[in-house]
């Protein structure tokens, strides 16, 4: 029974995507209700899949397996949900639902947007669940196409330019991936991930076609993940996209590409392939290390909030790619935890940034000056998420980075000097992250006219433990009372500083839930190990 949920989780959103357009001629506002019903049902399906995989126990050794159309491996296309897929499916479903709460208030509106949104959700589900290399390409392109459309959803010229840049680079990435799949297919004659595992071993890990295939796949997916120096599309796309779209794609699109890389590396090519091809892993570690360093440094130099967190993603995904290439159990666990945790953190951060922009017109770091007094709880949530991104314990950010760094040191101990380099680079990157998060904290709490240190201090403490009903009402109240005085206190004649003066309650509750989850998961170190131990055991 539960294996039928796998195709349903993909088909339901893709079919639902046609309704807003079909019914749009008759009903103007049909998009949101359709998307909401679909998102809620997806959360239910994801929860059931996760329950089956983690609690009940999956029916086969590979997890829940569904053969589409009843065609057996290796001829048919399979959908597979193991521990990693199930966790990603849950993340996709939850973030998709959270995005809807946000987009209802801040837009973009219109039935076409919700069609794109549902297609994107279906594509992300497909990437998480597919067990076939070419099927993965199709879902990558579904995700890509809808992302290009959504980035340009606010119909401005700047977002269209960012989107076409993304389209050109993203398509080259997917095409290179397709070449890699072609090479692998030529060498083995199979496209099924589980079947390829033994087929590649039979051909031999040193085979030039296999090596070239893997190299093409890594480069292609790196373009989609936005690893330095293939990241150029990403800051523009994140900055120019509508705020709700940024929160959605920053949390999930690169994450799903990184998941695909992890999945292909460990399920298809296996860890023995990495061990047999030191040159490939060294190149990946080098690119990842540079990505971590340059991404963090560029983030620290940005003044636009969305661009800042976009460059921060370049660094964080560098760490995940490093974890994949390090190929030991600790680093891989760290990579998985950071993959999921970073998705959650970036969703929260871009949600917070969207609310700051909506409520107070703050788009640059300088616009944040003493906003903490007008919006103490919103600022508090953004700061807590920022500190979680730095890796202050307890937080999910620390957990992922800790395991990756530990794995890097373990690799160094096992005689791989690159491991030490990754550990060092991660330390430097953490300092850079602290630098740009500290800048935001400083602006929020200490900058601007008439700084009252006691005042700022007390709101910090209050913001750390927000209670939901109070939080929304209290953050609204001072904001509205201060709003008329705002043009006088503003130090810059900045046209961007016009906001609605309050924060929508629903979206704020989502932000608080994300913040509490990000902190709460910091306590789940051993639970994470228990949860993914079967997966790690199969992979390494």
């Amino acid at each position, binding site marked *: 029974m539960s294996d039928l949920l796998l195709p349903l989780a993909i088909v339901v959103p893709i079919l639902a995507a046609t309704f807003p357009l079909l019914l749009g001629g008759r009903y103007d506002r049909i998009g949101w209700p359709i998307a909401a019903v679909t998102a809620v049902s997806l959360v239910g399906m994801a929860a059931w899949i996760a329950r089956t995989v983690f609690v009940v126990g999956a029916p086969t050794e590979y997890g829940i397996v569904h053969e589409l159309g009843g065609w057996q491996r290796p001829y048919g296309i399979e959908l597979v949900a193991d521990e990693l897929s199930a966790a990603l499916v849950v993340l996709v479903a939850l973030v998709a639902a959270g995005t809807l709460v946000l987009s209802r208030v801040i837009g973009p509106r219109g039935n076409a947007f919700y069609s794109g949104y549902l297609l994107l959700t279906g594509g992300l589900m497909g990437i998480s669940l597919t067990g076939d290399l070419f099927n993965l390409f199709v879902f990558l392109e579904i995700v890509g196409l809808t992302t290009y459309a959504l980035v340009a959803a606010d119909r401005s010229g700047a977002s269209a330019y960012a989107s*076409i840049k993304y*389209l050109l680079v993203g398509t080259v990435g997917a*095409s290179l991936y397709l070449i890699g799949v*072609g090479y692998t297919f030529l060498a083995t004659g199979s496209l099924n991930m589980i079947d390829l595992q033994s087929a590649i071993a039979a051909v031999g890990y040193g085979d030039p076609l296999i090596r070239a295939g893997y190299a093409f796949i890594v480069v292609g997916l790196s373009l989609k993940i936005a690893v330095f120096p293939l990241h150029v599309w990403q800051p523009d796309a994140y900055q120019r996209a509508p705020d709700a779209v940024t929160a959605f794609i920053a949390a999930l699109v690169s994450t799903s590409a990184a998941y695909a890389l992890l999945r292909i590396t460990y399920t298809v090519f296996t860890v023995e392939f990495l061990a047999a091809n030191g040159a490939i892993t060294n190149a990946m570690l080098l690119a990842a290390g540079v990505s971590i360093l340059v991404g963090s440094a560029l983030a620290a130099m940005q003044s636009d909030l969305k661009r800042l967190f976009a460059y921060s993603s370049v660094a964080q995904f560098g760490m995940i790619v490093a974890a994949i290439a390090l190929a030991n159990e600790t680093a891989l666990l760290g990579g998985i935890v950071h993959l999921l945790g970073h998705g959650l953190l970036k969703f929260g951060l871009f949600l917070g940034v969207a609310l700051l922009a909506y409520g107070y017109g703050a*788009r640059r770091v300088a616009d944040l000056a003493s906003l903490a007094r007008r919006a103490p709880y919103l600022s508090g949530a953004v700061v807590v998420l920022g500190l979680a991104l730095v890796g202050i314990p307890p937080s999910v950010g620390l957990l992922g980075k800790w395991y990756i760094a530990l794995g890097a040191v373990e690799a160094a101990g096992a005689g791989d000097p690159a491991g030490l380099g990754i550990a060092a680079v991660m330390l430097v990157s953490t300092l850079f992250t602290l630098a740009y998060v500290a800048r935001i904290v400083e602006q929020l709490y200490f900058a601007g006219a008439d700084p009252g240190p006691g005042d700022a201090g007390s709101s910090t403490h209050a913001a750390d433990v927000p209670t939901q009903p109070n939080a929304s009402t209290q953050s609204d109240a001072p904001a509205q009372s201060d709003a008329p005085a705002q043009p006088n206190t503003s130090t810059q004649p900045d046209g961007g500083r016009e906001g609605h003066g309050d924060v929508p309650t629903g979206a704020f509750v989502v932000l608080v839930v994300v913040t509490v989850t990000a902190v709460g998961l910091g306590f789940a170190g051993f639970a994470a190990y228990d949860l993914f131990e079967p997966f790690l055991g199969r992979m390494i």
Partner: protein
Amino acid sequence: MTDHLPIQLALDVLATRHAYAVFTALLCIGLYMMIANPHLVKKIIGLNLFQTAIFLFFIASAYVHGGSIPIVESGGAPEATLVSPLPQVIVLTAIVVGVSLTAVGLALCVRIYTEYGTLRTDALREAMAEEDDLPAAGADSQGGERA
């Protein structure tokens, strides 16, 4: 004698594997066009060339001399050589994907042209740098216009 060998090898490859040589050439031309040409529509043409190279690669690799389609009549014995239909199916799907990408890309081009009146990336970059000097960019400028 020794310096003849590489040339002979190259000629051999060209004579027997010319499809792969064309594949590589098209791939590089397409990629170069996307990087070097400042015109957005020409970049999309380059992208199409790049994808066409990949279709060629799949079709060429699937060709088997003297092979027949893998349809076996019930009761009949299979032909000597059957060809795997998978690469052709992959190419069909990839063509569909390529067409939709081209459509989205051209739609974006139309919008960029109506907004800025040019499709050259250098001119676009200048236009956008000017726009960024204004107090607010992107979605904010629209809000400002309305207010």
